[in-house]
């Protein structure tokens, strides 16, 4: 019996794109949170961690409302950029990035905060800017926490259900990722198909986590 592989590819694509966006967004955010001394810092820290405590449906619901053409922001996107993000892959990426934000930002922020400040000051006295110091000194020496952020965001996005269902709607070949496909197959009593997707997800997740622990052991010692 052959099964439709698109849900798996969609999940993989979504997790990859989300992780790349999170690296680009999460590192600067983690940096500013780690080194800021502003009074509003606890508020921003709490906001980043909100997806950890909110039910995914709540988050998905608000993102859906915000991005829908009926709302000012969604209407703006449609009018100016001519894109409708709800029930599309782009919408899934936006939702996943917000939902997995703490999984990237929190470990990276902790890594930056624990990094010896004297090394940062040494780079400054050698004439290096904050950006150069971040790229050449801080990031290469906090690889273990960056790796944690990457793996956790990726794995978390692979297993996401509530947010992608709310924003994506589970449209076959467009937004129906593996976790939703499993749910649909169980609903239709196609247990063998559900089992097929589930086994692949279990094996894949396990392999990813084993790889992470191997890499962590190697890079964790460098720091």
């Amino acid at each position, binding site marked *: 019996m052959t099964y439709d592989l698109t849900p798996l590819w969609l999940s993989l694509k979504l997790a990859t794109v989300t992780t790349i966006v999170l690296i680009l967004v999460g590192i600067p955010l983690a940096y500013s949170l780690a080194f800021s001394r502003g009074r509003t810092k606890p508020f921003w820290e709490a906001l980043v961690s909100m997806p950890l405590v909110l039910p995914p449906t709540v988050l998905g619901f608000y993102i859906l409302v915000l991005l829908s053409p009926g709302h000012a922001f969604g209407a703006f996107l449609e009018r100016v950029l001519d894109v409708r993000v709800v029930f599309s892959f782009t919408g899934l990426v936006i939702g996943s990035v917000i939902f997995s934000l703490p999984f990237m930002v929190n470990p990276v922020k902790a890594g930056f905060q624990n990094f010896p400040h004297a090394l940062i*000051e040494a780079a*400054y006295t*050698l004439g290096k800017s904050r950006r150069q110091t971040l790229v050449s000194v801080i990031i290469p020496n906090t690889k273990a926490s960056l790796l944690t952020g990457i793996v956790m965001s990726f794995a978390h996005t692979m297993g996401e259900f509530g947010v992608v269902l709310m924003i994506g709607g589970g449209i076959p070949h467009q937004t129906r990722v593996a976790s939703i496909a499993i749910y649909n197959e169980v609903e239709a009593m196609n247990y063998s198909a559900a089992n097929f997707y589930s086994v692949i997800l279990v094996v894949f997740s396990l392999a990813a986590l084993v790889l992470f622990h191997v890499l962590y052991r190697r890079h964790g010692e460098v720091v």
Partner: protein
Amino acid sequence: MKIFLKKTLMAPEGPFDLSIDVEVRDGECVSLFGRSGCGKTSILRMIAGLQAPQEGLVKADGEVWFDSSAGINLPPQKRAAGFVFQEYSLFPNMTVEENLKFALRRGEEAVRVQEYLGLVGLKGLERRYPSKLSGGQKQRVALARALLRHPKVLLLDEPLSALDVQTRWRLQDEVLRLYEKTGITMILVSHDPFEVMKLSGRVFMLEAGRIVKSGGPQDVFCGSEWEVFFQSAKNGPRAVRGF
């Protein structure tokens, strides 16, 4: 070089006011000597721009680095000051050579790296990572790295205090040799009277943020509680090994 600094510092016993006003001549090596917590390191950090005084004026070679009355406060990147930290502060992800190259300005030739490696006797260790170096070797790398930036002043924050006695003596000779060769202005922070006597021409003795005595090492240490060190040191460091 003009250094005038005022700042309230926190100590375990409570806050105290640091206030110093000194002139350091070009090519001079001066020491800031005193017990830990008397504000020595803060002075170096304020000269380097890593910390800001409440009030002050820092001028090097005619260039204003800090002037509270004019609202000038150059960031550390813009001050030509070499800083050598007590705990070496070498970048663990870079080899010896890469640590030195990191100090070069954009477009500067890497040839100078070899020259400075030779200057501190580290040829052959270029490809080693800091974790594979001894304490003495690490501090030589840190010295070469700080000098590579053509600083107007070299700030040494208890650079040798983490080393064993023998290595410390050897490194003191090394610092002296580098000083004589480069003719650079040096400000050394130390709580080791031998080191101060060996390396510096002038000493500022600090107590709770204020200079209580200054002058040549002989004038400062004679008649003070440190005289015993001075008398022993005159007979050479070896004579006081058991001290």
